[in-house]
C-alpha cells in the first residue's frame, strides 16, 4: 500500500497534493467551512485569505447550529491546484475551524444564490422585464407603476444571465447573497 494511492482530490483532511505542481491551471472551488461562531472568527478567515493573497469570489456566512454556536462559511475561491490545497490546509489550521469541505471535489454540490433586482421603466420594457422574469422563475416582491423588485434564486451563472437581460431593460440596483452550497446525497 503506497501512501500515494490516495483518492484524487480527497484533500479535505490531508495536506496531500498529488497533481503536477507546475501546471498553471486556475480552478474555482467551493469550500464549506464549519466554525465556532465566536467573536472575530469571520475576520480570522477573511484575514487568512487577504494575508496570504488568496482570492475570494463569493462569501456567505450564518449560524447554522444555534445550540452548538456553529456557523457555516461558504467561500468560492480560485487558484492553482497547489494553492487550493494550501488554502484548505491553512483553514484547517485555524483553531475555531472544525471542518473544511471542498464541495467541488467531494462531488457535484447543489449551489444556490439569492438575488434581488430593481428594474425601473415603463411601457414595452416593463412588459418585457416581467416576461423574462417569468421565464427565469423570478418572483415580483415589490412593484410600483415605474418599478419592480424581482427575487431570483439559482446558480451564480443563472443570476448573471438574468442580470445581463435586465440591464437594457432598466436595471437600477442589484443585491446578491453569494453562494450557499451543500453536497448532494446522504
Amino acid at each position: 500500500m503506497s501512501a500515494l494511492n490516495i483518492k484524487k482530490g480527497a484533500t479535505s483532511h490531508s495536506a496531500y497534493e498529488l497533481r503536477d505542481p507546475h501546471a498553471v491551471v486556475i480552478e474555482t472551488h467551493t469550500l464549506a467551512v464549519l466554525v465556532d461562531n465566536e467573536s472575530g472568527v469571520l475576520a480570522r478567515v477573511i484575514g487568512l485569505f487577504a494575508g496570504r493573497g488568496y482570492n475570494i469570489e463569493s462569501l456567505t456566512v450564518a449560524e447554522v447550529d444555534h445550540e452548538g454556536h456553529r456557523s457555516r462559511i461558504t467561500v468560492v475561491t480560485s487558484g492553482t491546484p497547489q494553492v487550493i490545497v494550501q488554502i484548505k490546509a491553512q483553514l484547517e489550521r485555524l483553531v475555531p475551524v472544525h471542518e473544511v469541505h471542498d464541495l467541488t471535489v467531494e462531488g457535484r454540490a447543489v449551489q444556490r444564490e439569492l438575488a434581488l433586482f430593481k428594474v425601473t421603466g415603463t411601457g414595452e420594457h416593463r412588459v418585457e422585464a416581467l416576461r423574462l422574469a417569468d421565464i427565469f422563475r423570478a418572483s415580483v416582491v415589490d412593484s410600483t407603476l415605474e418599478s419592480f423588485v424581482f427575487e431570483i434564486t439559482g446558480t451564480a451563472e443563472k443570476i448573471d444571465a438574468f442580470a445581463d437581460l435586465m440591464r437594457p431593460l432598466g436595471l437600477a440596483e442589484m443585491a446578491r447573497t453569494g453562494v450557499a452550497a451543500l453536497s448532494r446525497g446522504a
Partner: protein
Amino acid sequence: MTKQMTGAKMVVQALKDQGVEVVFGYPGGAVLPIYDEIFQQNGIRHILVRHEQGAVHMAEGYARSTGKPGVVIVTSGPGATNAVTGLTDALMDSIPLVVLSGQVPTFLIGTDAFQEADTVGITRACTKHNWLVKETDRLADTIHQGFHVATHGRPGPVLIDIPKDVQFATGTYVPPAKAKISHYQPRVAGDRAAIEKLAELMETAERPIFYTGGGVINSGPEASRLLRELVEATDFPITSTLMGLGAYPGSGKNWLGMLGMHGLYEANLAMHGCDLMIAVGARFDDRITGRIPDFSPHSKKAHIDIDPSSIGKVIHADIPIVGDVGNVLRELLEIWKARGARTNKAQVERWWGKIDAWKKVDCLAYRGSESTIKPQYALERLEALTKGRDRYVTTEVGQHQMWAAQFLHFDEPNRWMTSGGLGTMGYGLPASVGVQIAHPDSLVINVAGEASWLMNMQEMGTAVQFRAPVKQFILNNERLGMVRQWQQLLHGERYSHSWSESLPDFVKLAEAFGAKGIKVDRPGDLDEAIRAMLEYDGPVILDVLVEKHENCFPMIPSGKPHNEMLLGSAATEGAITGAGGALV
C-alpha cells in the same frame, strides 16, 4: 471544588496551575489588578523588562531553552503593540508563548479610550490564536485553553486580552482538569503506509540525505535522540536548517553543517545532488531552497511535519507524513529495523566519497590577519574557549548570526536560540536574559552585531537588576554588515545608510548599566578578553572590533540554485550579474 475569586487572582492561580514559574512583563494601567496579585504571592517570579518587545523575546529564549511555554504580561495599548514584533517572531519560529494583555474596561471598548488598541485585531495575524475575555467566569478556562493551543500541534504564541473590569470582577475559577476540552487536537501519529514507503526507499537510496529543522527540537529531546539513532543506524549524511542546529550533534560524524543561503558547500551540494531527501520538521523556507525549479531536481522527497499546511506549500512532497517528529521517527526506526535494517551500502559509500571531496573545498576558509580581528576568527576562539562548557548561545540577526551558525557547534538541542523566520534584529540580548533566567548557573552568550544589539540594549538593565550574568559578545564592524554585503554584491557598492557614525562607547555603556565592559581590537589580545568575559561573575559586554568589510560566505545569491554558490576565495564583485567564472 470550584472557587470564587477575582479575575486578577484567577490569572495568577491559572498560571500556577499550569506550572508557570517565571513571567516576563511590564505593568501599566490596564493590568494593575493582576500586578497587585503578583505582589501578594511568591510562587511566580516576575521579571521586569524595560520594553515589552524585550519581554516577548525573553519568553522566547526561556521557552526555546526549556521546552516549556514562555509567559508574558503586558498592559493595553502601547504595551500590547510593543509585543507585536515578538509575537510575529514566535509565530514564524514556532515558539510556544502565552501573552496576557490588559485591555480597557469592556464598557469603554470601542470608544478610543486612553491606551485602548484593538489588540485582538492587531495580533490576529501574528498569533496562533487569540481571545478577548469579556466575562470573568470564562477567564480561567480561556487561559487553560491558551496553554493547550500554544503547546499542542505546531507550537506558537497565543494572546489573551483581559479587560480591566474582568480582572476586578469575581467569578468561578476552573482548574485545568475541569477546563472545557478544546476541540483543537492536531494529529500527531504519522500515516503508517507512508512511513513504510519511506523505509522502503531508504533501503534502495543511492544518495540519501536527512534535512532537519526546528521541528525536531520542538518535538522534544526524544526526537533528537531518535534522529541520532536513525542517522547512526543508516549512516546517511545529515544537514540542518538554522533553527534545527543541535538536534544532531555538530561533532557527529555524519554532520554536513548547516544548509541554505549561507550554508556549507558540502551540505548544499548534497541537497542538490541527492536522490532521497528526508525532510524532518523543516519547512523549505526560501533561504533554504533558493530557486525553486532547480531545487534538488533529481530527488524523491519525504516530508515529515506536524503541520499539514507546511507540506506541499513550497516543494512537492512525494511522501507526505503528517505527524509529530518524535512519533514518526520512532515508527520509522521500528519499521525499517523490522524490514531488516538494510541500506544500499555500496552506493551510499560512493555518495560519501563525493561528499568528502566537497568537504575538501573547505568552504569556510577565510584570510587570517595579524593586525585585525576577523569575525570568523573571533568565533573560532569563542568556540575553542567555551567548548565542553554548559553553554547556551543566542544571536542577533545578520552576518554575525550566520558566522555563529557556521563556526559554533552544538551537540545538544535547545542550546541555540536565534531569530530564523522573521530575522528580528534586537532578539538576541533579551533572549539571552530569558535563557539565563531559566538556567541561572549556565554560561549564556549572545553573539551580536553592534547594530542589532542597540535595538534592544535597554534590556541590559533587566540583566543587571535580575543578576543574569549574560555575556554580550559583540562583533563590532561599525556597519550593518549583511546590508553592506548585499549592497556590495547587488547594488554597485553604493553603501546607502549601512554604516553607523557615533556609536556608543560600549565599555562605558556597560558601566553605565552597572555591568562590566571590555574592548578588544587586536587578535593577540582576543583570548585574554574572552577569558575575562567568561570569568566575570555578572553581565559583560565584550566589544570586539572586527574587520569592517568582511563578507559572509558561502553565499547562494538570490534566485540561484544550490549548486551555484559564491565562495570566499572567489572574486565577488559582479559575480551576481553573471560573470560565470565567479560562480561555483
